[in-house]
Each structure stands twice: as C-alpha cells, then as structure tokens.
C-alpha cells in the first residue's frame, strides 16, 4: 500500500495490540498520535492534541491490565469489576464522543479492536468480554448514526494472543478449538492487522461501514 503522509491516526491503548498496530500504521505512512491506558474524558483528545483539527482514523484498543487478568467473577471485588469492565466500556464510549468532531471534519474512520472473547465469551474474562462486546456493538451503532456525517465505524476481532499472556491465550484457543489457522499463521499485528485497519480507511472500502471483521487467519469463522 502506498504511503500517504498527510493522514493522521490516533491509536488508543497501552501495550499490544495498540503498540504494534501503531507501528504498522507508521510504516504505512500515517502520522501517529498515541494515548495509553490513562483515563479518557470528553476533552482528552482536545487536551492531548490541542492543534488537532481533523482526524482520519481512531483505533481503540484500550483495555487496562485488570481486563487482561484471568479471574472468575465470583472472586472479583467491586473495585476490580469497575476497573476491568465498567471503566473501559465508559472510556470507549467517551472516546467516541470526544473524537466525533475531528472525525467529522476529516470524514474519518473509527475502529475498535476487540478480542475473540467479546463475541465468544471467555472463562475468567467476563469483565473483559463485557467491555469489549459493548464496544464491538457500539461500532455498529456509530456506523448507523455517523454515516451521514461521512464517518465510518468498524470492529475487528483478533485472536486472544493479541491481548493476553501466552498461557491465557492458549487456554482461550483450546476452549474455542482454535488450532491450525487455515492461512498457516495468526496475523502479525504490525505487518498485517495494521494493513487491514489501513485498508478500511481507503476509498476502496468507502461503501463499507459497521463491519465486524474477524482478522485471525481463519481460526474462527462465526455466523
């Protein structure tokens, strides 16, 4: 894909998959803005990037550490539940609110990256699955609402290994019979997943919005 230096992407979330997808977008020629796992308020985008007038792409993958730790629901405290589910769900909603104006100015795209557990469930990951599935569905709602503003919205489901420690990801793979990807590999986040994100912003996919894509090399084929 030919580099396009004039486009600006905001990638939100600490660690992977945000880090690696951000690297891939940089390589593809995007100007990259980064936010980590810090709290998100309505003015977070405006405060962090005060000169930003338009935004071509927002990639959300903000799932703080407590989301990614396996723990049965019965063992969670109220504070842990809030930190692992309610707060990240609310932050993803607030990000959409705060990004609306700069996305509208650029007729941009917002993409929520979610783990397989969002739509398939995960033993020990109820709060993570809850927050992520809420955001996956939010992408569809944004697509419906913002389409007339020229903004497109999508969700991309990734293999659990994009979010979890190797042992936990292996457990998810086993629970969902995710073995032997048809394409021979799980996609590389920086070299391959970022290209899918990039492609979703292109004119070639201009008619596509509200998509819920599974980008995992064919491991999981729902629906």
């Amino acid at each position, binding site marked *: 894909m030919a580099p396009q230096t004039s486009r600006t992407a905001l990638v939100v979330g600490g660690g992977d998959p945000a880090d690696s997808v951000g690297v891939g977008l940089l390589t593809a020629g995007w100007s990259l803005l980064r936010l980590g796992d810090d709290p998100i308020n309505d003015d977070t985008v405006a405060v962090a990037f005060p000169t930003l007038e338009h935004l071509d792409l927002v990639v959300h993958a903000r799932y703080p550490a407590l989301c990614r730790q396996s723990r*049965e*629901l*019965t063992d*969670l405290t*109220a504070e842990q*539940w*809030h930190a692992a*589910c*309610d707060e990240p*769900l*609310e932050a993803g*909603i*607030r990000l*959409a*609110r705060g990004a*609306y*104006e700069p996305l509208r100015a650029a007729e941009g795209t917002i993409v929520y990256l979610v783990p397989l*557990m*969002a*739509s*398939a*469930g*995960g*033993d*020990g*990951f*109820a*709060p993570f*699955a*809850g*927050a*992520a*599935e*809420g*955001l*996956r*569905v*939010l*992408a*569809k*709602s*944004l*697509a*419906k*609402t*913002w389409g007339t503003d020229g903004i497109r919205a999508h969700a991309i489901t990734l293999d659990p290994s994009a979010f979890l420690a190797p042992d936990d990801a292996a457990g998810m793979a086993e*629970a969902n019979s995710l073995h032997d990807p048809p394409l021979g590999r799980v996609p590389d986040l920086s070299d391959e997943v970022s290209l899918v994100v990039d492609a979703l912003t292109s004119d070639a996919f201009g008619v596509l919005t*509200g998509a819920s894509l599974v980008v995992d090399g064919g491991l999981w084929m729902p629906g």
Partner: protein
Amino acid sequence: MSGLLEDQVAIVTGAGQGVGEGIATAMALAGARVTIAARRSANGEPAAQAIRDRGGQALFCRCDVTRREDVDAAVAFSLKHWGRLDAMVHNAVSPPGPPRPIQEVDDETIASQIATSTTATFHCAQAAFPELRTNGGTLILLTSPSGIEGSGHLPLYGAVKGAQRGMLKSLAREWGPHGVRVNAIAPVAWTPAMDVATEANPTLEARLIGRTPLGRIGDPTSDIGPVAVFLASDLARHMTGQTLAVDGGRYLGL
C-alpha cells in the same frame, strides 16, 4: 406452562412494570415463588398483589440493583421467605432517554445505563451464585436486539446491552462446570418505555408492526414471560450461553 417451575424460587429485577412484571407473572403462574425486586414500592407492591390475585405466589422486596447491599438483601429476602433461590432474572435498566447520537448523550445517562446494566449484572450474578450452584439454577439476563445489531437511535443502550451478552457467554463457560446455566432474552414488547415512544412518534407502532413478520409487538406476560419460564425450567437443561430473540421475527439477521 402450569407446574413447569413448581418448587422453584425466582428473583426478577425491575419487576414492577413492563417486561419484568410480565416475566414475574409468567413464572409465578408456572408455579414459581417470585420475589418482585423493584426500586419503587409504588409499582412493585401492586405487581406482587396482581400475581397473588391470580393465584400465584409473589412478594415485593425493594431493590436498587446498582446498590450491592440491596441485591444481597433481595437474595436474603428470598431465602428467608421462600427458603431457596433457583433463578435470578436481571431485567432492570434505567431509562435510556430520548433517541440521540452518542456525542449528545450526557454523563448522567452514561453512568446510569452502565450502573443498571453491567454493574448490576455483576451484582446479581455474584450475589446469586452460591444458591444457584447449590440448586443447579440459572441466571437470565434481559438484553436487546440493539445489543446485537447496534442502534442508530440509542447507541449507548446498544453498547450496554451488548456488554451484557459478552458477560453472559463468559459466565456460561465459567459456571457450566458448576451446573449453572446462563442465558439471555432479547425482546421487543409493549413496555412503559414503548408506550412513551409510540406516543411521541405516532407512526412508530405501524412501522414496527409492518417490519415484524408475526405482525404485532410482543406482550410481556403472554409472549416474553413463557420464554423465561422455558429457560428456567428443566426443558432448557442443555442450553447455556444463548440469547433468544423474542421479537416476532423483527430481527431475523441477528
């Protein structure tokens, strides 16, 4: 469905009106002893009385599902008055407000929708689990077609209802080995909220019915309630992690 839930005890949140009241009524008429867990006695008590008037067993317990102590108290109330708990039905949700895009949704609405959906699901699930495990019981969540296909009118509502589905599938995996089933119902039915919406938009009812293959909007007691009875009964003993759309065929693409 008389007798299907004989000897069972259920808590239904938000059962003072609408879908919750319909489910509580149907479960009671199927033989369950039902705790009407509602925030306001003004509708919770009459809902319980209406069930008793029809020969069912129901008691009102004041419960704000956003307060953990209230949910714990509803479980304790059920154990004290009925002696056990087999089904926790979480239906309560705060009003989503008028249709509007996400950038116009205020902080208070976001907080209340999350509190009554994800936080309250956590409260209900964790508080009920010991009894559900003991009795091989079930957790039933009321979600929405909006939580599956999103909503252009109520994007926040779609997000929190979608979040409940992610939770239920995870809990189905987590609690299956304990013999506890977790399922959801996504209804389209006449509720006080639907009444308000159709009054505000006179063409809404005709449009909804026109897009519904079965040609009508569901009744909380006779259309939605029996599905909850089925899910709580032994007939559904091999079902978990599922969402049943009870919408007259309105959303066939889910």
